[in-house]
C-alpha cells in the first residue's frame, strides 16, 4: 500500500494503482483523453502529465504506478506549461468547427482547452484533413477531429469483444477505421461515441438535432431487454431526443446496447394516441368514455372463466398489478405474463432469477449456457462474461460451455450439444463444472419456451445442484430473461390461478370460442390469428400486431413516459422515471386500468402511485427495496419430466426487432436490414 503526497495531501492507495488514481484519491483533477477506467492503459495523449519530485521530466500519470514516498504536484507551473504544450499539439490538427460539431457542449477537448488552451495558434502550415470513414448507420464520423486517443479501438477489442476498429497508417497519417470500412457489427458499438473525447465519432441518428444544454435529463431504466440497464433519457419539450447510459457497476457499468440507445425514434412512430373502438369491422377513434363503455358492454354477464388477460414484454409492474387485481375481481383466473409460453414456475423466485447476479459473473470460473445466445438476448451480460473471460485471475481461464445455438459470442467456448440431451451428458465439461469453485448455469428462454421447457428447467436445476453450483455462499443457477416485464410479472403472480389457462390455453380457448374476452397489456408477440372471434382489448403504445387485431384500443404510456417499477432478470427492483408525457390522450397504464375498474364497478383500491406501490409491496415485499436484490433463501426442487430431442433455438432472431417500440423505429429497421445484407454476403462467400 504505497503512501504518497499529492499537492501536499498524503494519500494511501492500493498497490498497483496508478499515479492518476492516487491524484484523484487526493481530490486533484487530472485532465485526460486516452485514459479510461474500464479500458486498458494506452498513455498516448499525454494530457495527464504531473510533476513528480526527483523526476527530471513531467510524467504521464495514467501510465505511472504510484510509488511509496512520491511527492506529486498537479498544479505547479511546470505542469501547467507541459499540459499547455500538449494541448497546443492536439489543437494543431483539430478543426475549429465547434459551432457545427455535435460534441459541442459535452466535449472533453473543448472543456480542457478552456483550462489549458492558448488563445492563438503558432501553427501556420496546413491542417491535415482526413477522409470520412463509414462505420454503419449508428456511428457518424468526422475523422478530421480525431485526436488518436484509441479509446474506441480498445473498447471494441476489450469490452465489445469484436475487434473491428483499428488505426491504420502512422504518425500524422494515422487514421481510425474498420477493415475496408465495413459497418460496426457489435451490439454495443455506439458506446464508442460516448467514449470519444472529441467529436470524431457522434450519433448518426442524433446528428444536428439538439444541443446538450437544451435537453432535460431524466434518469430512468431501459426495457429493451431484461438487463434493466440504467439510462438517462434526454428530452426536449415533448420529444425524447436521445438515450445515454448511466453508471451502475452492478448492472450495465457504463455501457448500453445499440437497441437501448437508438430505439428513441420508435417512441414517436406508430403511436397509439387516442382510444379506438371497432365499429362495423373498422377501428374508429373514440373517447375514453366510449372505449370503456364498449368494454363494459362486452364484459357484462360474461363469466370470469371466459375472460383472459395477457401481459406483454414491456409492461411495468404497476400496470401488471392493476391488470391482475382487476381481472381477478372479475373472477378471471386465466392471467399470464409469459406471452412467449416459457414454462417458468412463479412459486419460487430462485427458479426464475439470474441468481448469480450480473456483477457476480466476475467471480464465476465456469459457465454453462443452455439454450441461450446472450450476445443477442442480453448484450450487456455477454459483455460481462467477456470481461470475466479476459480477467487473468481465473486459473486456466474462464471455461464456457454452450448447449444450444452455436453463434459467435465474442469469447471462446466449448460446444457441447444442440439439444436437451446434452444436459444429461456434458462430456468433459461435466468435470469442468464439478471442479469449478463457482460454476454458473445460465438457462435462456430458448430452452424454456418449448413444450418440454419445464423438464429442461428441472434438469438444469438438478444439474446445478449436482455440480455444487448452489451452496450457502454461491448460487450458480440463472435464468436469463429477454423481457423487461417478465420477472415483475412472475413476482406479482401473473400466472394462471385455479382453473386458469396459460397463454397456450388462452389462445386455444379463444380459437374454440371458450374464451370470449382477451385483454392484451402490450402483448404483441402472440399469434393473433389464434384469437379467433374473441373480443380483444389491446392496451399498449404502438400500432403493432395487437392493435391491428384489437376491438378496443386503450393507448398507454411507453417506458419513457411514466414513473414505473421494473424488475430485471436478477430480480433487482429499479424505478424508471417519466421524461416526457404520453402523446395525445394516452395515459399511464395502471391509471387506465384503475379507471376501467371504476366503469366496471370493481373499483381498484388505489388512487395514486404510492398506493399501488404499497399494494405491490404487500404482494411481494421486495418491491419496497429499489436497487437491491432480495436474497433467495431456498432453491426449489422441480419435478423431472420427459426431454425432447429438438435443438434449442434463441428467441431473439433479429436483435433489432424484438418489441413494438423497436419495430417502429426507422433506425432499428436500417440496422436490421444492414445486418441481414451483411449476413447474405457472408453466406454467399
Amino acid at each position, binding site marked *: 500500500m504505497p503512501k504518497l503526497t499529492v499537492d501536499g495531501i498524503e494519500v494511501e492507495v492500493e498497490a498497483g494503482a496508478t499515479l492518476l488514481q492516487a491524484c484523484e484519491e487526493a481530490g486533484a483533477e487530472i485532465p485526460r483523453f486516452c485514459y479510461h477506467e474500464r479500458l486498458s492503459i494506452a498513455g498516448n495523449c499525454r494530457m495527464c502529465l504531473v510533476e513528480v519530485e526527483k523526476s527530471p521530466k513531467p510524467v504521464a500519470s495514467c501510465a505511472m504506478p504510484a510509488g511509496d514516498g512520491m511527492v506529486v504536484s498537479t498544479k505547479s507551473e511546470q505542469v501547467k506549461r507541459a499540459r499547455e504544450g500538449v494541448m497546443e499539439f492536439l489543437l494543431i490538427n483539430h478543426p475549429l468547427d465547434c459551432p457545427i460539431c455535435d460534441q459541442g457542449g459535452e466535449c472533453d477537448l473543448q472543456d480542457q482547452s478552456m483550462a489549458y488552451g492558448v488563445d492563438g495558434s503558432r501553427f501556420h502550415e496546413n491542417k491535415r484533413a482526413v477522409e470520412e470513414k463509414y462505420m454503419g448507420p449508428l456511428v457518424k464520423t468526422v475523422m478530421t477531429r480525431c485526436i488518436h486517443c484509441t479509446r474506441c479501438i480498445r473498447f471494441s477489442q476489450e469490452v465489445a469483444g469484436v475487434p473491428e476498429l483499428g488505426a*491504420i497508417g502512422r504518425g500524422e497519417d494515422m487514421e481510425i*477505421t474498420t477493415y475496408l470500412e465495413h459497418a460496426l457489427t457489435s451490439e454495443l458499438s455506439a458506446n464508442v461515441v460516448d467514449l470519444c473525447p472529441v467529436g470524431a465519432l457522434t450519433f448518426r441518428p442524433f446528428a444536428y438535432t439538439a444541443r446538450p444544454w437544451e435537453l432535460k435529463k431524466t434518469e430512468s431504466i431501459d426495457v429493451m431487454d431484461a438487463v434493466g440497464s440504467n439510462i438517462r433519457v434526454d428530452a426536449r419539450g415533448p420529444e425524447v431526443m436521445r438515450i445515454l447510459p448511466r453508471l451502475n457497476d452492478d448492472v450495465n457499468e457504463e455501457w448500453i446496447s445499440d437497441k437501448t440507445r437508438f430505439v428513441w425514434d420508435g417512441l414517436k412512430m406508430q403511436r397509439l394516441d387516442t382510444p379506438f373502438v371497432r365499429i362495423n369491422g373498422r377501428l374508429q377513434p373514440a373517447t375514453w368514455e366510449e372505449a370503456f363503455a364498449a368494454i363494459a358492454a362486452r364484459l357484462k354477464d360474461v363469466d370470469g372463466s371466459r375472460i383472459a388477460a395477457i401481459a406483454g414484454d414491456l409492461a411495468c409492474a404497476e400496470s401488471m398489478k392493476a391488470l391482475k387485481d382487476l381481472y381477478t375481481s372479475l373472477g378471471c383466473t386465466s392471467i399470464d405474463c409469459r406471452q412467449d409460453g416459457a414454462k417458468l414456475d412463479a412459486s419460487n423466485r430462485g427458479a426464475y432469477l439470474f441468481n448469480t447476479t450480473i456483477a457476480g459473473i466476475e467471480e464465476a470460473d465456469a459457465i454453462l449456457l443452455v439454450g441461450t445466445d446472450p450476445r443477442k438476448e442480453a448484450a450487456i451480460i455477454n459483455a460481462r462474461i467477456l470481461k470475466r473471460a479476459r480477467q487473468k485471475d481465473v486459473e486456466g481461464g474462464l471455461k464456457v460451455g454452450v448447449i444450444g445455438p452455436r453463434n459467435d459470442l465474442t469469447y471462446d467456448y466449448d460446444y457441447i450439444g444442440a439439444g436437451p440431451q446434452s444436459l444429461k451428458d456434458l462430456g468433459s465439461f461435466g468435470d469442468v463444472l464439478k471442479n469449478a469453485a463457482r460454476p454458473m448455469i445460465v438457462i435462456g428462454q430458448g430452452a424454456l419456451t418449448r413444450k418440454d421447457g419445464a423438464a429442461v428447467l428441472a434438469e438444469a436445476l438438478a444439474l446445478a445442484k449436482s455440480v455444487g453450483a448452489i451452496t450457502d455462499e454461491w448460487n450458480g443457477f440463472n435464468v436469463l430473461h429477454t423481457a423487461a416485464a417478465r420477472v415483475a410479472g412472475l413476482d406479482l403472480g401473473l400466472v394462471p390461478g385455479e382453473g386458469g389457462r396459460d397463454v397456450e390455453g388462452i389462445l386455444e380457448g379463444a380459437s374454440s370460442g371458450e374464451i370470449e374476452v382477451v385483454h392484451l397489456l402490450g402483448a404483441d408477440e402472440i399469434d393473433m390469428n389464434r384469437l379467433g372471434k374473441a373480443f380483444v382489448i389491446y392496451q399498449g403504445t404502438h400500432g403493432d400486431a395487437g392493435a391491428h387485431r384489437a376491438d378496443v384500443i386503450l393507448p398507454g404510456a411507453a417506458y419513457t413516459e411514466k414513473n414505473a417499477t421494473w424488475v430485471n432478470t436478477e430480480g433487482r427492483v429499479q424505478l424508471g422515471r417519466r421524461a416526457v408525457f404520453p402523446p395525445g390522450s394516452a395515459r399511464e397504464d395502471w391509471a387506465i386500468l384503475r379507471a376501467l375498474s371504476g366503469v366496471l364497478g370493481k373499483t381498484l383500491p388505489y388512487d395514486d402511485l404510492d398506493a399501488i406501490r404499497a399494494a405491490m409491496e404487500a404482494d411481494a415485499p421486495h418491491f419496497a427495496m429499489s436497487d437491491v436484490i432480495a436474497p433467495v433463501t431456498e432453491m426449489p426442487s422441480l419435478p423431472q419430466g420427459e426431454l425432447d430431442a429438438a435443438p434449442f433455438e434463441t428467441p431473439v432472431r433479429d436483435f433489432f426487432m424484438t418489441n413494438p417500440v423497436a419495430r417502429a423505429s426507422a433506425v432499428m429497421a436500417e440496422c436490421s436490414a444492414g445486418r441481414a445484407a451483411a449476413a447474405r454476403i457472408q453466406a454467399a462467400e
Partner: protein
Amino acid sequence: MSVRRLDPNQPDSFAFTAENVEWAKKQIAKYPEGKQASAVIPLLWRAQEQHDGWLPEPAIRYVAEMLGMDYIRVLEVATFYTMFNLSPVGEHFVQLCGTTPCWLRGADDLKEVCRKHIGPEGKVSADGKFSWMEVECLGACVNAPMVQINADFFEDLDASSFERVLNDLREGREVKPGPQSERHASEPEGGLTSLTTVGDPQTGGGD
C-alpha cells in the same frame, strides 16, 4: 510519407505457394503457442515477395487467417510499415534515399534522373520495368548518395552512373551492386591513407 491506401485494383485471391506455406509454418513455429501473431511481419514480407513486390488486400486477409488475427490488426501492420508496398511496383523497384547525407551529396540529382527515366514517383513506368520512391535513410551514408533497387544497394552514385545503372537494367544487362565509383566498399577514395601496412600481431603495432 503520405497517406497510404490499398490499391483500388486488387486481385481476387491470394495464397502462398506450397513452398512458402512450408516456410510460413516454420516461422510460426518459432513463437510460443498463443503468440503466433508475432510472425505477421515475416509472413507479410514473404507475401509481398511472392506477389511481385507489393501486398494485395487478399494477402492481408490470408495472413490474418493463417495467424488467427483480426483483419484490421494485420491491416494496421501493413499500413504502418512503409516497406510494405500497397500498390504495384515495377520489376526494378528503386528506393531512393533522400535523407540529409545523401541529399547533401546529390540525391536531388538522382531524383531528377528518376523523373526523367522512370516517371513520377510512385507510378510504374509504361514498360512495367521501373517504379521509384523516395525513402528515409537506408544506412549507407558513407557511400552517399545511394539507391536500393530490389535487394541491392547502388552507392556513390551521380547522375551519369545512375543513368547507366538504369539503362543496363532496362536492357537486361548485368549490373554490379555496391559503389559505382572507383572505390572499394567504403574505403577512402583514392586509396588507403592509413592502415597501409599490416601490423605485428604480437605487439599489435602498425601505423
